[in-house]
């Protein structure tokens, strides 16, 4: 391209071909460095922007205690769902008047489990996982681990659930 006006032409003949190479490498490295700085300066705010809800959820999930006003009226032999942080959880009032609170997220692939009073079991409809409704132990089906158990404190007018 003889008719062109060279602009910073790195391929222009230099006295020392060795030096020509290193100059080209230097320019390439500088460009990459500046590019990385700009990439980070743009990428960081964009990442913070997009991940704000995830960070908020993480701090919401960090709760250690949930108060359930009126839950002490829960009928014997029945259960209710509530939110512990961001996740569903299960409060069961057993027939023998004991209270149990369990994480309601199946340890297999994350479906929400349900309490079946007639069969006195916790069942996951997705792949037929079964848990013990008093201990949270995984007793049948695919679940690999027990459901996490919470501490329950029943008082007049409310139930308080705490991370064990």
């Amino acid at each position, binding site marked *: *391209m003889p*008719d*062109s*006006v060279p*602009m910073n032409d790195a*391929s222009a003949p230099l006295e020392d071909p060795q030096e020509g190479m290193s100059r080209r490498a230097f320019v390439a490295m500088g460009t990459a460095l500046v590019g990385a700085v*700009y990439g980070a*300066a743009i990428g960081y*705010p*964009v990442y*913070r*922007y*997009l991940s*704000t809800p995830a960070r908020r959820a993480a701090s919401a999930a960090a709760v250690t205690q949930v108060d359930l006003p009126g839950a002490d009226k829960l009928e014997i032999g029945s259960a209710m769902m509530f939110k512990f942080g961001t996740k569903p959880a299960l409060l069961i009032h057993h027939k023998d008047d004991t209270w149990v609170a369990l994480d309601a997220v199946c340890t297999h692939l994350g479906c929400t489990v349900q309490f079946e009073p007639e069969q006195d079991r916790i069942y996951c409809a997705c792949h037929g996982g079964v848990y013990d409704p008093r201990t949270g132990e995984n007793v049948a089906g695919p679940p690999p681990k027990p459901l996490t158990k919470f501490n329950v404190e029943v008082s007049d007018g409310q139930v308080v659930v705490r991370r064990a």
Partner: protein
Amino acid sequence: MDKSSSAVRNSGLVASAYTWLDERLGLDEIIAFARHKTVPQHKHSFWYYWGGISLFFFIVQCLTGVLLLVYYRPGPEAYDSVRQITYDIEFGWLIRSAHSWSANLMVLAVFVHMFSVYLMKAYRKPREFGWWSGLGLLGIVMVFGFSGYLLPMDELAYFATKVGLEIPASMPVIGPFIADLLRGGPEVNEITIQRFFALHVVVLPALFLPLLMFHLWLVQKHGNAVPPSEEEKPEALRRSMPFFPNFLAKDLAMWLIALNALALLASLFPWDLGPQADALSPAPVGIHPEWYFMSQFQVLKVFGRWFPGMTGELLGIGMFTIAGVVWGLIPLYDRDSKLAMRARIATWIGFAAIAGLILLTIWGYAEV
């Protein structure tokens, strides 16, 4: 073939990958097409960058727009969601500010680009379609700006849209129907937001992108026009550089400057969010449209003052329509440098248009 691409071809793996792709996609043809254009070098070369700068801001609009889309909710929650983006989501204020600033800079760049190609007489044969598609792009850009302005639904957005839609409404016979269609009823409300939203993020990009491709393809095909002062010089005295990669590298350097300017403006002067629009509260004093609608706004205002009733509006709209048609037909009038008289008149019209727009805009701001 220059050194860099033959070097690419010689280095083993890269070479075979290139050949594999080239045999299937015809990369050589694409590169040849990119290389065939040269950019003239002369004292007005600076103006060749403005199309590229417009393009840069358009790309910024696409990227920041998608980011805003992540949290923006049209309809009754619109204001709330913008409030959330501005004050609640981390760096949301910056994304929003960048989108608003870049929108204004883009309109500015497009105007500079248009007037510079006008004065270089780049609309002459064979570039007429470049001119017309460019005018189409400008029209779409202004509708982008108008529709986007309503989306936060703060006080300013609300009244600017209300007033702006009075312009189509004042057209004879069909005016009221068109205004009702745009508003989705007699009032500007959440229904209006919803349809402006559809316009802003779906319809306008769908129209803009193919037109932009057409425009850029034409530029690549015909190359840049040289201004008349350069055309007079003998061939031997004219200089040029290949578009690819030399001018492209300079284009990218310009983009870097544009990026830095945008970053400074967006972070040092964060875009404001006014109080929520309230249909029952009176319009705030000094309400006025965005600067690029100011000249039209001012003409309507002044004509409304001079002529009774709707006559003023009608005359104003008529004037702008005629000016637009003349502006569009210029390539058919000023066809050839041999028609010296026409060339001079066209240049004069160009300067008159620039001066007129600037004066009307200043006048408009002086009166708010």
